[in-house]
Every structure is written in C-alpha cells, then in structure tokens.
C-alpha cells in the first residue's frame, strides 16, 4: 500500500510537472512579404525554433536567416549577403513573455501580446507583438502578423533596388508546440 502511495505521489508530481512544463517546436513558420507596384517578394522559413514556458509565459523564437527560402536564387543571395549580412548576423531572435499569461486560459483562440526583445541584424529592440494563442490537448498554437521596418534594424536597402522593396515588411508567424519532456 505504501509503495502504491509513493507511486501515486510520484505520478502526480510528474503529471504536474508535465502539465506546467515547456512546449516547443522546431518547425515554426515565419514568412515575410514585401509588396510594391514593381515586385512582390516573399520568403519562408519552416524551421523556426519556438519555446514556451507554461509556468511563466516566457517565450523564445529563433530563426536562422539562411533558412529563409526564396523562389529566386539571386534574391536569396542578395538577401543574405547585401541586406541581412547573415554571415555576421546569422540569427533573428525574439525573447520575451506573453503579457498577463495565465496557465490554462487558452482553451479557445485568445488574443495575446508578446513583450520582449527582438534581435535582427545585430540590432536589439524592445517590442510588443500582437498575436493569438490556443491550446488543444497537449499542443499550443501561436500565430501572429505584424510589420517590420528594415530601417529600425539598420538594414540598408541600396537605392538601386529601393523601389522594389516595401518600406515595411509584413511578417507572419505560425507555430504548433508540443511538450518538451527533458
């Protein structure tokens, strides 16, 4: 009976740890889209790492700049070499937390605000990003759409292509996070 009690308590602790643990994905999707009368440009990264701590609402996004894929090879090369300088600044990250996070409050799609530090091209800025969050079973679904101004991150667009790239880029984020068991 004592052994059974110990087992039950152990399972309870493990269960509690599991239900308020971390959730993650390595398959998060970030897309950016630039639209001008001359040209539409879009790129996708389907390998974004996302981690959410269900106990605190802390959230992290990490994306390799070189993992953004463009349809045209030259555009991808210019993006990496001329604008993002991805050899020097290989990652874009967001580290922060979901404002007013409440564990267990996301049974249906809920509007949230992520507050924290966005680092792109070696420049870090405090930002507030609107999005939605929901939890179905053991899966969190995070999504967001927001605008980024390349000037804010000291990304210089040469005058020769200035007309082809929008002043603000639309960024779409979508990630489904499963439990992290380690």
């Amino acid at each position, binding site marked *: 009976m004592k052994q059974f009690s110990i087992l039950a308590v152990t399972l309870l602790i493990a269960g509690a740890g599991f239900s308020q643990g*971390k959730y*993650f994905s*390595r*398959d998060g999707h970030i897309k950016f889209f630039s639209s001008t009368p001359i040209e539409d440009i879009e790129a996708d990264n*389907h*390998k974004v*790492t996302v*981690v959410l*701590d269900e106990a605190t609402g*802390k959230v*992290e996004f*990490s994306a*390799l700049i*070189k*993992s953004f*894929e463009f*349809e*045209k*090879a*030259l*555009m*991808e090369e210019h993006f990496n070499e001329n604008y993002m300088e991805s*050899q020097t600044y*290989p*990652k874009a990250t967001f580290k922060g937390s979901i404002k007013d996070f409440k564990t267990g409050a996301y049974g249906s799609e809920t509007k949230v605000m992520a507050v924290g530090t966005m680092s792109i091209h070696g420049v870090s800025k405090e930002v507030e990003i609107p999005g939605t969050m929901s939890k179905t079973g053991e899966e969190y679904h995070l999504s967001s759409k927001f605008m980024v101004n390349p000037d804010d991150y000291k990304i210089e667009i040469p005058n020769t292509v200035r007309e082809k790239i929008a002043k603000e880029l639309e960024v779409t984020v979508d990630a489904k996070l499963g439990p*992290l*068991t*380690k």
Partner: protein
Amino acid sequence: MMKKILIAVVALAIVGGGIGFYMSQKGHDETADVEAAFSLSADAIVQEFLDDEAAASAKYIDQVIEVSGPVFEIVKADGHISGVKISSDEFAIVNCTFQSSPEAMTEGEIKIKGVCSGFIGDSESMLPGGTVELKRGALVK
C-alpha cells in the same frame, strides 16, 4: 562604321540585359544533382557545431552536406512530406526541409543531402542541445 559600332553596342546591351534578366529570375540548383562537399553522420555534425560553432559554421554553411542517421521525425505539410529530422537524440537534431517532396519515406536509417544554413542552439535558450538546419534537401537513400 559608326552604324556598325552602334549595332554592336545595341546587340551587346540586349545580350547583356538578357543574361542579367535570366540570372535574376533563375531558380535554385537541384540539390539532388549536386555532389556533396561533406558526408557524415547526423550525430557527428551536431557535435561539431556544439563543440565549436564558429569553426563548424565556416566549414559547413552554404555547402551541400550528405547526412546519415536514424529518422527521428518525418515532417508533413498539407499531406506531403516537407522535411525530416534525423537523430538518435531528441536534443541533437539535423532538421532538413526538402526541395521536392519525396513520395514516400520509411522510418529507420536514411541518407539525405541538403544545403547547410547553420545551427540553432545556445546555452541561454530554454531548449537544450542544438539543431543543424539543411534546406533544399534531397533523399539519397
């Protein structure tokens, strides 16, 4: 004489412009047709990045790498196979997205190749270990 020079200049401009336009519109090389610069196991390449990220980045990024190891997860999008994760360790992963969806894949040992885009993983992250990312991958066997 002047007319001939003018024709030559115009012809060169047309050819040059044509080449420029072609280059700007060109897609990516088919990774399946490119010979890999390196061939190693998934565990070995992740370990190299964990040991010395700067050295491994200089060596592998933008290179076509052939990676072998056990399938950790087959990734699907819209019913198609979009990628694969290779590893025997949940926190030391090679994460590859495919250039063209393979029709079928089975669990077990596989070999793929893809263009290395770098490494995600740092000691300050909430996620332990690290991930080597390959893009425009192709199934070798």
